[in-house]
């Protein structure tokens, strides 16, 4: 599925599709070559100059790899663990032990779905307090088992429902922030799609923050910001620019440590390549962080956050 701003690519796709798939005449074969090449350069140009609002569209693309894809592509084993031991099991956050090459880790992440049934089951990746509490339970287990934690972030935000408020959404997120800041095991955080505000940060405090090149991370959705500060929801593109939510902008602000370059045309066009790039970075960071003493690790983690907004 092409996005609205990819119109030129859609037109080329249509021309390519109009050509016969086999027994092409030499002229048709030449056309095919030419169209393919035009498509390739077109995509490359388009994706090297994405506006922040276009990047939001890519980050929310329905075919963008989800945590299910990252788990399947990265880990040779994944044992899912369920429940917060207090209330229930929130499907909007998935977690469990996983093996990445020689590394054993605890993986935790927001879970979105594909299609409406899936998305209803996972609540579109919007977690409730029990999701954040399950995540924290698993992180404490990681501390005890002495394995690093890898968190995958992809959520529009924490679930804004009455039940979530009733069970202490604010307290659940707050507790995670406090406890993750002092968790005695390395934490690697990867923003893979949408980093939606407190709902993202609730499993997003760590030693290193990686971000896929077309992911976004923001204090508020561009739509929400536009309706409050512009009093006009249609000004979301302006808000997306003003909020500085792209990986590049966040690297410059020294909030993001490393950008995971996506293949041309976005991770959804070639998930395997995106996952392979991420794998390399994860291994490099796991190696570095597990060779750091816990004391040093925690001091650096504290300093990393203390520096943000200190001028």
């Amino acid at each position, binding site marked *: 599925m092409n996005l609205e701003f990819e119109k030129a690519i859609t037109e080329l796709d249509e021309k390519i599709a109009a050509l016969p798939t086999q027994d092409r005449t030499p002229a048709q074969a030449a056309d095919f070559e030419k169209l393919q090449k035009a498509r390739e350069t077109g995509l490359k140009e388009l994706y090297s100059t994405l506006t922040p609002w276009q990047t939001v569209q890519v980050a929310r693309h329905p075919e963008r790899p989800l945590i299910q894809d990252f788990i399947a592509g990265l880990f040779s084993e994944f044992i899912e663990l369920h429940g917060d031991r207090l209330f229930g099991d929130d499907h909007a956050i998935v977690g469990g032990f996983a093996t990445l090459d020689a590394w054993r880790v605890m993986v935790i992440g927001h879970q979105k779905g594909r299609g409406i049934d899936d998305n209803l089951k996972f609540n579109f990746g919007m977690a409730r307090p029990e999701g954040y509490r399950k995540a924290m339970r698993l992180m404490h287990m990681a501390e005890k088992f002495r394995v690093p934690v890898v968190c995958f972030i992809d959520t529009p935000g924490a679930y*804004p429902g009455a039940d979530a408020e009733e069970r202490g959404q604010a307290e659940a997120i707050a*507790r995670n*922030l406090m406890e993750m800041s002092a968790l005695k095991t390395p934490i690697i955080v990867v923003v893979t799609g949408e980093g939606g505000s407190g709902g993202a940060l609730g499993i997003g405090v760590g030693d290193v923050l990686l971000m896929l090149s077309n992911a976004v991370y923001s204090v508020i959705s561009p739509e929400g910001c536009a309706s409050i*500060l512009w009093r006009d929801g249609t000004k979301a593109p302006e*808000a997306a620019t003003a*909020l500085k939510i792209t990986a590049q902008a966040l690297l410059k602000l020294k909030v993001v440590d490393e950008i995971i370059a996506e293949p041309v045309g976005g991770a959804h066009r070639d998930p395997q390549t995106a996952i392979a790039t991420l794998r390399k970075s994860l291994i490099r960071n796991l190696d570095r962080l597990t060779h750091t003493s816990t004391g040093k690790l925690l001091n650096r983690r504290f300093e990393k956050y203390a520096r*943000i907004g200190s001028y």
Partner: protein
Amino acid sequence: MGWFTKKQAPAASVEQPKQDIWTQCPACKAHVSKEEWDKTFKVCPRCNFHERITARERVDLLIDPKTFTELYPKIKPSDPLGFVDGKGRYADKIEEARQKTGMNESVLTGYGRMNRIKVALAVMDFRFLGGSLAGSTGEKILLTSTYALKHRLPYIIVSASGGARMHEGIISLMQMAKTCAGIARLQEANIPFISILTDPTTGGVSASFAMVGDIHIAEPGALIGFAGRRVIEETIKQKLPDDFQKAEYLLDHGFIDLIVRRDQMKNTIASLLKYYRR
């Protein structure tokens, strides 16, 4: 009221003083003398409505006279994104807020004594851009927790905030983690942290330091919650009850230790701190 004031204008010199000694409770509309309103620290004697007060007023209320020393008064917002929205520049809004409040940021920090017990204190002021949490707000709150840690003082934070300051984008979001990292260090050193939640304590402030206190004390009727009422109503397509996200609702659901009237707040905190053995 417009026509009334106009009509009275010529004779104002006679009528004005009389008018000035009365104020009206925004909740129950009762007329209360200004003297009484100030004496109760802006709590309605009739219906117990707690009006929002400034950070300075809060310090006067909580800290023994002449014992407060302000810390980090010069820290001010920095506009890290160069933010401009439909209504203008963030930099101008900062200036406006500074003029209006006489403060450099949405939080006042320092140390002083509460019934002679020395404490570190951070008090948010809702008048300064809705008490929003910005980079320098987080900075002051963290520096004060570091001060509390160094001097082994109980830390009291009085929250009054609509949440993160979106004009600072991700920088404001990260202050949630930054302030909580400071509280984690107090926790590890066994230093008490008492969180006072006043009207309103919502969004990113409710989901960070305000909710990780050893003890949570709210003022009666304070609005406390993560998501906004309108957003929730749109999500669940239902009207919410009036008491939803009020202090009393949070007490019922186990997220608040105590609801304390404003005039009892100082003595209550001091009484609790007596149980802390350094």
